[in-house]
């Protein structure tokens, strides 16, 4: 079965442009409950490989090295970067259609007042290697 990576960035969706930290408490709770339920559903169906959020860009570092001297380590990337990766789900599914269906569920996660965020979700197939 093909594996797909569903990638989420910090970019905002048509349904919500307020960062989650500023939502009302009940909406944060509802959102978290939705994400947990979705992971549980995918796990029950035998489709979830991994689901992780990444620690924030505040604690991120970027490394560049020429392989000889000491590497250059800088703080960040600091966004501007709305396109910065925030987290991912790795799913193992029957078809691309199914991956797109899951991505649609992810995108419609509830935001403030339960309005779907319509967050863009990038769907990338994981390349397979010969066994």
């Amino acid at each position, binding site marked *: 079965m093909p594996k797909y990576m569903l990638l*989420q960035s910090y970019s905002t969706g048509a349904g919500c442009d307020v960062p*989650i930290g500023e939502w009302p408490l009940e909406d944060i709770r509802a959102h978290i409950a939705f994400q947990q339920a979705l992971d549980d559903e995918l796990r029950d169906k035998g489709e979830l490989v991994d689901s*992780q959020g990444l620690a924030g860009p505040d604690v991120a570092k970027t490394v560049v090295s020429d392989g000889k001297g000491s590497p250059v380590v800088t703080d960040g990337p600091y966004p501007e970067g709305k396109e910065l990766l925030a987290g991912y789900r790795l799913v193992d599914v029957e078809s691309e259609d199914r991956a797109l269906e899951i991505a649609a569920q992810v995108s419609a996660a509830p935001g403030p007042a339960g309005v779907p965020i319509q967050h863009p979700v990038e769907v990338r197939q994981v390349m397979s290697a010969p066994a």
Partner: protein
Amino acid sequence: MPGEGAEDLLRTLAPQVLGVVARRFRDFDAAEDAVQEALLAAARSWPSDGVPGNPHGWLIQAAVHRLTDRLRSEQARRRREDAVAQEPPPADVADTDDTLVLLFLCCHPALTPASAIALTLRAVGGLTTAEIAGAFLVPEATMAQRISRAKARIKASDVPFRLPDDSERETRLRSVLHVLYLVFNEGYTSSAGGRLHRTELSGEAIRLARLLHGMLPSDGEVTGLLALMLLTDARRPARTGPSGELVPLAEQDRAKWDRAQIREGVALVTEALARGDAGEYRLQAAIAAAHDIAPRVEDTDWHQILRTYRLLERMTDNPVVSLNRAIATAMVHGPTAGLALLAALDDRLAGHYRLDAARAHLLELAGDVTAAVRHYDAAAARTANTPEQRYLMTRAARLRKSFSSTGPAAVQVPGGDLRGSRS
């Protein structure tokens, strides 16, 4: 389920069997592999065929069989095998000694903590590589490699298979305790990832600490560590809320705490402290006990906790201890006094989310809601622990709500939203 009983038995027997086989063959690395295979074979056959009359002997025989097969197939080792075959069987050494030798070996300071942990869980804990890999969320092949590198390291450093000499015993015991403490913490608050409790790991750490305590009952730090684990783990059922968020000590439903575990922990820490000499684990356990025996949060004896943190701070230069002392100070002398102490930690804990979280908490106590929200947000943006992040985020949201009638300025977390969605 018959399988579960067999599994417990296997885990108990694992280090005893390994001790005997390693001693007989004088090759810890190969013996450990052979015992692991014997355990896997037993785990497959015992649940259906029934546990043999002498399970200990069954496992030794199975492991020796495998090891002999392997040695026989390795031409280069032929001579050694003959030598072993001619040797008289090893004297009956008490199993507990072997288990202790194994613990010292697997937690050898030459190993990195990550590999010592993995090796200890397999060789002493009797867990399979797959189980350990699962607990640490890494692929099995990666964990297998970590374990075999650890064994190669032990082999290269030529550590003898016996208890360390008196001269190095204290240092070696410290690294054993440290490894067990790390296993416990990994289970209790996983350093990354979505689930706050990986119960299996904390349970395993407690089991191993109990085993160690059984072998060294008069060591105050061993007793202290076991007490600390029990007293901390007792709160586990109350520590996570419905959204998987961390519930801080002050807000936990104390009726959910495990009373039996608290009683045992308190008895142990009392015994350890009665020994007179102090030690870090004992003092930490004393603090945990002070929290656990308070029927309500407002009954907490903060004077006692503050005194203990002062003692602890003298024994360690760990800035997190100083941070906790600042919080205890705030509880005794008011938030301003605590905030003053936190200010002194800006350099040593720069950028650490715990400093922001503690500051937010004390600012909230001091009534400075705007600043508290800012620091809760900053802490949430920096933590790598999902339940912790959920807690910090909801805490900020709650404060913001209570404040919104007076219209606070929008608080912008540097770095944008906290991962807009799944947290």
